[in-house]
């Protein structure tokens, strides 16, 4: 095709683009994937029966605060990597804040608990399944983010994949809180974070393949 004809065709399809379109599209993918992930949770695992009571206590909000703020920080990095001319991602250190705060809560918890109970507190009842469930729930969210990226222009594909995986994992952990009855901060710090990191790792492996354009 001649370049002039191509330009005519492209220009014929000039639709207005609003500022902040990248962020909105990323959020749309995240929310759509999150809804799918929530459906998966309700049908396969079920919502914890005491959710209404749990939402009145501090532990539930500690967990949600951790996963939600991690998801927000990861999204802030992802949105930068959606642009081609990002040479330096800013705000990576923000990811450390929720981790550090939860670790503090974990230390406070350990101090209050006799050391004979530390192991059972750390492993809870679901340490073997928790990371895998978070990872499984992150799949639809990662798919949603992949959809968002179809109109983006990432040039650092591995980093963009990792950031998208991290966002998906952290948001999946947020969804998983609706099911998981575990109450210990060190449990969440270890096993939730492990699932989130797995999602980020798989994202970094898939990025160079799936984010090409």
């Amino acid at each position, binding site marked *: 095709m001649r*370049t002039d004809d191509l330009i005519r065709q492209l*220009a014929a399809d000039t639709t207005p683009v609003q500022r902040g*379109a990248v962020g909105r599209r990323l959020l749309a993918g995240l929310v759509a994937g999150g809804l799918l992930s929530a459906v998966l949770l309700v049908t396969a695992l079920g919502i914890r029966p005491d959710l209404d009571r749990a939402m009145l206590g501090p532990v539930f909000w500690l967990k949600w605060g951790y996963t939600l703020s991690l998801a927000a920080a990861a999204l802030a990095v992802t949105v930068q990597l959606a642009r*081609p001319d990002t040479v*330096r991602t800013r705000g990576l250190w923000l990811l450390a804040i929720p981790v550090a705060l939860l670790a503090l809560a974990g230390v406070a918890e350990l101090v209050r608990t006799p050391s004979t109970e530390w192991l059972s507190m750390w492993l809870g009842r679901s340490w073997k399944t928790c990371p895998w469930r978070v990872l499984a729930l992150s799949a639809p969210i990662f798919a949603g983010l992949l959809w968002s990226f179809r109109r983006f222009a990432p040039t*650092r594909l591995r980093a963009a994949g990792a950031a998208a995986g991290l966002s998906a994992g952290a948001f999946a952990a947020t969804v998983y809180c609706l099911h998981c009855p575990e109450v210990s901060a060190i449990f969440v710090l270890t096993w939730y974070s492990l699932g989130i990191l797995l999602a980020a790792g798989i994202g970094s492996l898939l990025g160079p393949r799936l984010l090409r354009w």
Partner: protein
Amino acid sequence: MGTTEAALRDLMVAGLGGDAGAHAALLRALVPLLRGFYRRRVRGGNDDIEDLVQETLIAVHTRRATWDADRPFTAWLFAIARYKMVDQFRRHARLSPIADADAIAAADDFEAEAIARLDIDTLLAGLSPKQARMIRATRLDGLSVADAAAAEGIGQSDVKISVHRGLKALVARVQGGTR
């Protein structure tokens, strides 16, 4: 039709606002810039170059939402052009880059490039904006002096002088830092 950063940026802003005429003018203005960019870098026939130009135009069009209006338009454009070039080298062994193998490896590794750019950004920040822009255009983005002059809307000798003075100031600074 101007091809300065300011002119291209205005067209882009109008195009993003839904002005099809401005958008078409933008894409037409990019064609010579992109042809020059690829001709200097890719060993291939005119058809190969034109394929790359068209691929880039399509990407500029479909992914125009990823331009941040707070950042330079040409930096965004050449980031896309460079990505398309590296991607093309991966796909088609037939096309080979003009630069030597080390340079390809470096261009392939966006992260290493990013780290190098970080240092460059810090260094260039100390120069006058015009000197920094001209060094960036001719030494980093790989524009010819003529292209850079056209993009900035100044004479070629002006570009050469800016680059020369800027580099001299950089050398002085680097040596001063080690002294």
